């Protein structure tokens, strides 16, 4: 099966080869940084295109000059062996090619500096979101009228409205063992690092509703490649519905269902130690003690099923992928749950029955 | 390869030129550590305020001793140049001794700080303080070892009156270490505590 898949991939690549030669470089690349979908990506791109055009002109001139020189001044086969004129330099020419590049750069410098300040300033009426980088997933916190909403990996925002991200890096609620990440959603903005012990800011905005792809862009160790993210930009009405849903408590399954069995597994096993599910109903353990799921080590699962993917946005969220994940997470995504410091979700050795019940429960958390 | 000084392009002995280059590099070395220290000047990690622990009069005395050792170093070189090996040895020993007094003072100071709750791992401030001054102490120690080696070789007759360049070179190093200490004492102790 692997070889068939590999062959298929190579065929696909070969087919794309012909296509790509015709299409421009930008075709069919959803995470493209040169296909801006919002003003904070558009402005730098406009500037880049100007500079890129100048660079192409210089490129053509210099390479043309080199090739012309090579052809024109090649030693001919019938060369008489005399030496060419021994020029040592030409001050006028040299001043010229010092001054012209300096002038071009000075001209580019003005809009560059202007834009640096412009992009840094906080836009008016921006929606505020806290972003927390963890190895290897993203956490988002919203404040809606004093109530905090926690989500992960998929960042929901209203389309057409600027969003101000305040970003920091943490591990298990502490800056201890936290590392540097970089939040990057190319269609909506350039990247900004997320540094332990600091709060950095980034403005993003999507002109149109839709899904936009991004990922962590600062190497953060083992599963850096698996620290992907998405932005789900919603129309005004969808946004309001989303907010309302997030503010509501999580679904509590009816007794006796598979989902209810899943809830028991969640609270009786290790899950509750790291994950939060806010359903307003403490779980009653056999010994009579009450348990609340408020762990912040892993992603908040209150409305897990309202998101399209999980585990650093690398898997589509469905019964199949979720079951595979719960059976053995480190096999699905490289993590270090058993080393010190422990990073990521360990294999909980769940039985197939437990997995089935958990999947049903988690997928009911819309 | 030893080339007579008069045949070199700059009229300067190769070894001396190399020592100057090396010391230039050392300035950047200490410069980076001092910058780190300044960056963490108020990062006490909610633990002891290291600057309040500084005992300026005490450190002034040990700084003065180190400063004076530069004088004896100059005297050692002068004696060596004149061919007065006995005196040169004496001054070398005096220089090394003052260096040892300084190191002893540093060990005592470090011990006192640790007793008062500021260890190597206490805070960014303490880490950068101990590592900066510790590296300086290591440089002084290397200098002492060189001085004593020089003294031994003079005593054994392996270094004679004509080889005062060796004393001059070690002297260059010693003065450099001294100058670095003056900078450290000013930037690390005096200004923050003042």
């Amino acid at each position, binding site marked *: 099966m692997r070889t068939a898949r590999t062959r298929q991939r190579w065929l696909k690549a070969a087919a794309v080869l012909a296509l790509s030669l015709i299409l421009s*470089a930008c075709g069919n690349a959803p995470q493209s*940084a040169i296909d801006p979908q919002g003003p904070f990506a558009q402005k730098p791109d406009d500037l880049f295109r100007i500079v890129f055009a100048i660079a192409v002109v210089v490129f053509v001139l210099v390479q043309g000059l080199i090739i012309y020189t090579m052809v024109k001044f090649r030693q001919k086969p019938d060369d008489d062996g005399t030496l060419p004129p021994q020029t040592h330099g030409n001050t006028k020419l040299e001043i010229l090619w010092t001054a012209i590049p300096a002038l071009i750069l000075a001209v580019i410098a003005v809009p560059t500096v202007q834009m640096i300040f412009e992009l840094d300033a906080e836009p008016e009426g921006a929606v505020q979101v806290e972003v927390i980088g963890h190895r290897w997933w993203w956490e988002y916190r919203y404040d809606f009228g004093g109530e905090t909403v926690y989500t992960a990996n998929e960042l929901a925002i209203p389309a057409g409205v600027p969003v101000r991200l305040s970003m920091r890096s943490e591990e298990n609620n502490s800056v201890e063992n936290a590392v540097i990440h970089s939040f990057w959603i190319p269609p909506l903005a350039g990247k900004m690092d997320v540094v332990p012990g600091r709060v950095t800011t980034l403005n993003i905005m999507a002109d149109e509703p839709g899904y936009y792809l991004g990922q962590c862009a600062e190497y953060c160790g083992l599963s850096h490649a698996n620290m992907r993210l998405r932005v789900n930009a919603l129309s005004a009405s969808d946004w309001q519905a989303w907010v309302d849903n997030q503010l509501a408590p999580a679904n509590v399954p009816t007794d006796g269902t598979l989902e209810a069995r899943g809830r028991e597994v969640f609270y009786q096993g290790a899950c509750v130690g790291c994950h939060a599910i806010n359903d307003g109903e403490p779980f009653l353990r056999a010994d009579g003690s009450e348990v609340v799921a408020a762990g912040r080590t892993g992603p908040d699962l209150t409305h897990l099923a309202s998101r399209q993917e999980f585990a650093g946005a690398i898997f589509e969220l469905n019964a199949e992928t979720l079951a595979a994940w719960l059976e053995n997470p480190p096999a699905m995504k490289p993590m270090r749950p058993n080393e010190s410091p422990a990073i990521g979700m360990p294999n909980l050795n769940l039985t197939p029955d437990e997995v089935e019940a958990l999947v049903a429960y988690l997928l009911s958390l819309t | 390869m030893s080339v007579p000084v008069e045949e070199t392009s700059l009229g300067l002995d190769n070894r001396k030129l190399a020592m100057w280059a090396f010391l230039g590099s050392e300035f950047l070395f200490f410069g980076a550590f001092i910058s780190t220290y300044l960056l963490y000047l108020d990062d006490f990690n909610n633990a002891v305020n290291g600057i309040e622990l500084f005992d300026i009069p005490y450190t002034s005395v040990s700084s003065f001793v180190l400063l004076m050792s530069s004088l004896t170093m100059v005297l050692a070189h002068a004696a060596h140049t004149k061919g007065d090996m006995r005196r040169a040895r004496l001054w070398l020993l005096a220089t090394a001794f003052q260096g040892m007094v300084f190191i002893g003072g540093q060990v005592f100071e470090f011990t006192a700080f640790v007793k008062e709750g500021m260890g190597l791992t206490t805070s960014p401030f303490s880490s950068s303080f101990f590592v900066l001054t510790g590296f300086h102490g290591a440089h002084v120690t290397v200098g002492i070892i060189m001085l004593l080696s020089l003294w031994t070789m003079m005593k054994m007759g392996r270094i004679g009156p004509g080889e005062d360049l060796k004393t001059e070179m070690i002297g260059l190093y010693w003065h450099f270490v001294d100058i670095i200490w003056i900078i450290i004492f000013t930037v690390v102790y005096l200004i923050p505590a003042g």
Partner: protein
Amino acid sequence: MASASVASGSIFRRPTAETGFASWLTTVDHKKIGIMYGVTSFIFFIIGGLEAMLVRLQLAQAEGTVLSAEAYNQMFTMHGITMVFLVVMPVAAAFFNYLIPLQIGARDVAFPRLNAFSYWVYLFGGLFLYSSFFFGAAPNGSWVGYAPLSVAAPGNNMAFYAIGLQILGLGSLAASVNFITTILNMRAPGLTFMRMPMFIWMALVVNFLLLFAMPVIAVALFQLTFDNVFATNFFNAAAGADPLLWQHLFWIFGHPEVYILILPAMGIVSEVLPVFSRKPLFGYAAVAFAGAAIGFIGWGVWAHHMFTSGLGPVATSAFGLSTMFIAVPTGIKIFNWVFTMWGGKLRLTTPMLFSIGFVAMFTIGGLSGVTHAIVPSDAQQHDTYYVVAHFHYVLFGGALFGIMSGIYFWWPKVTGKLIDETWGKLHFWTWLIGFNLTFGPMHFSGLLGQPRRTYVLPDELGPTVEFWNLLSTIGVFIIAISTVIFFIAMLKTRNGEDAPPDPWDARTIEWLTTSPPKPHNFDKIPVITARDEFWHRKYAEDDAGHAVPVPAGGQVDAPPEAGTEVDEDIHMPSPSYWPLVMTLGLPVVGYGVIFKSLTVALVGGLVLLFGMYAWQLEPLAEDDHH
């Protein structure tokens, strides 16, 4: 150095072997050491290249499974460390070693034993780094080793990085002191600064950069090691430290380092282009001062590696401007090289082709570099394959093309054999095509959103990105084939044609002596009367102002060197064991620190100390010498 009077009877005898294996272990001859640097860095180039091929195989298609995440992370990290610290820097040292004394008319470098020490430190530093594989702890935190990842990660991987680079840095520092002293102080009579070959100028700038950059990275590496081993708080944000300290220190070293890597190649190209254009270098003073200017401004642009670190708009603006500024002297050089060729009679030999290739490819790297100075769009390009493309155009298209040019140019001088031009040109064209096929597409894959240092190319990034990645992978195999061709070209010279002393009608005085040069380089130290001294001995201007050969001035096959009188009493330095012995202590100390064993560290320290004292106490020369 003890006085000669006590030499006999000393336990420290100096070795005397001049041939055979032992002679290489104890040699202090700058030419032999240069060859050792060259051969060692070629071996590391093969290793670093194999690592790159594994990386490219993994990324040949989306969701590749050739390497595990951990293995990939080790491969790309070791590829970077190897190519920077074990290939390009030491291969430049190979050229410095071999050429500086020959081009300035000296018999050796200022400190021959220190020179041997630098080489051994390089070799053992490299072996130390690679020994990490045997402990299952190869560095995996990228060549920039950003804290706090390099502290927080479990395992000794980044401890090997920190100490390995520390050891290598010591060798580079020693070499820089040595070369600076040599260039400043050992020039032949009449060789003023403005008569120095351009390669010597660039060597001088590079070694000053090394002199001042190595201590900064040494400090950063000490801090990293102490954080790892002694739990200090230099980068621990939980204790209130600022992790960006590492980035500042690393790039204050790292950006001059970029020029350390590229300037030697610029020096080589500035030698090769005039020879094969049969014209002097256009605007000698401008090229020299542009090199020096790059060396100075190179200290003020480090934070352009940190535009997305959150430094704030003022700092990023300032560093954006200084970065644009540094493009100016670079541009000057490119135009000067092109106009060196303009109006000449170009002989398109292999070294010439590589030099022209350098100018063309480096221009591309320079232009993409200017786009990085545009801070807002750099926020898109930073840490993507666009940057990977950029610096490979500078370091491969630039540095390696220049170095290849130098290898072909000076090979006859070093080995006394001519290289087969057919194989050389085959190497050049495959190298050029393979290089562009590998790194050209990375501009697109980067702009289309592919970040660097990711072990998997996600399916989500789309077929276009996958296509460009496939091209890159194909390209790297062409480079591999090209390298084999290069190797064959070198091997074939064993039975090749003997090289005359001056096969290229060259301009500088290393071509004055035999090929290969005698151990003492010159029978008589030449007196320098002009820039391009050797050329002026061969040609003079006639009444009409045209350059014509000087009849007695030395035909190509009989340089003035032959048959002239010989300097009396040529003293060459004697070989020595102690640089090697001393170096053996360094990795031992390193293992002691990494595995927290005081005993091991002390043993290493004792070896080091013993070597150091023996070095100081050994006699100046072998016993029969006065």
